[in-house]
């Protein structure tokens, strides 16, 4: 059994290749590559990754145009059927804009683009995406974004925290995110959005391997190896 995965490319995606390389490095199987204008996904997918970048030039709002692209209709349907979906950086912005995840990602509170390694705390290690981490494990993953300032109203934030849907929290101030939230899960636990880039921490040559466990968790959870 192998993981049947797909990486979506929007015009302006720039981490799609990194994501595909990371998935293949960890799972041993190259993912399908899907274009934003495709109307259908490959059959029988287990896992869909929305990569980082600047889809559609971040016109209107980051992720707003990509969230309305043809392939996203198929991805929303797949997510509702229970297919696992990971959105990283711009992919997270696309997931909030498409309504698959609550909240919104606003301009960083310090206005500047932030591009550096940051410490994260694994808040929920019981999810499909995080089961390979220890509870409250401290990991280091890079961020590279201008609009990573997570916002949701207090009732939504309370619900996310109460339901264990905060997957990762920044262990240091990064971008002004509400309650230092770095990654959130949907209510069913099959959709994760996060601003940090786990696909950039796969091999030691990248400066660390703390991103591996995320993809290993998905592989184990979906394929059982």
């Amino acid at each position, binding site marked *: 059994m192998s993981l049947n995965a797909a990486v979506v490319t929007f015009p302006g995606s720039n981490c799609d290749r990194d994501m595909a390389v990371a998935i293949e490095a960890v799972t041993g199987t190259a993912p399908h590559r899907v274009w934003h204008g495709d109307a259908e996904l490959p059959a029988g997918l287990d896992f869909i990754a929305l990569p980082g970048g600047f889809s559609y030039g971040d016109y*209107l*709002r980051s992720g*707003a145009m990509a969230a*309305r692209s043809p392939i996203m209709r198929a991805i929303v349907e797949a997510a509702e059927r229970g297919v696992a979906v990971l959105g990283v950086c711009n992919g997270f912005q696309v997931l*909030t*804009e498409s309504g698959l995840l*609550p*909240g*919104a990602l*606003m*301009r*960083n*509170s*310090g*206005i500047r683009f932030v591009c550096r390694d940051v410490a994260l705390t694994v808040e929920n290690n019981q999810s499909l995406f995080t089961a390979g981490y220890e509870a409250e494990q401290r990991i280091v993953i890079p961020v590279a974004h201008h609009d990573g*300032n997570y*916002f*949701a109203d207090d009732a939504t934030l309370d619900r996310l925290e109460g339901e264990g849907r905060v997957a990762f929290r920044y262990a240091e101030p990064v971008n*002004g995110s509400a309650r230092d939230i770095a990654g959130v899960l949907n209510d069913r636990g099959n959709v994760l959005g996060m601003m940090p880039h786990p696909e950039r921490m796969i091999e030691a040559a990248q400066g660390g391997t703390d991103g591996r466990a995320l993809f290993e968790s998905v592989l184990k959870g979906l394929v059982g190896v």
Partner: protein
Amino acid sequence: MKVRVHVSLKNGVLDPQGRAIHHALEGLGFQGVNDVRAGRLIELDIDDGVTDADLDEMCRRLLANMVIENYRIEKVS
């Protein structure tokens, strides 16, 4: 018909861009500015057959992000 859609951040949503603009105005020596909120103006040229309900739908589904933004529709001519 020309329509202007004014998109602005909801009350209570912090506006880093507005704050930076405010800071820059102060840096230029302007005084007496109490607060700055930055928004977005979108101008549409629409057929007469487009209804108010259609315009609302456009705003809700794309032009504004209802999690953080409000919108106001202004018919110009």
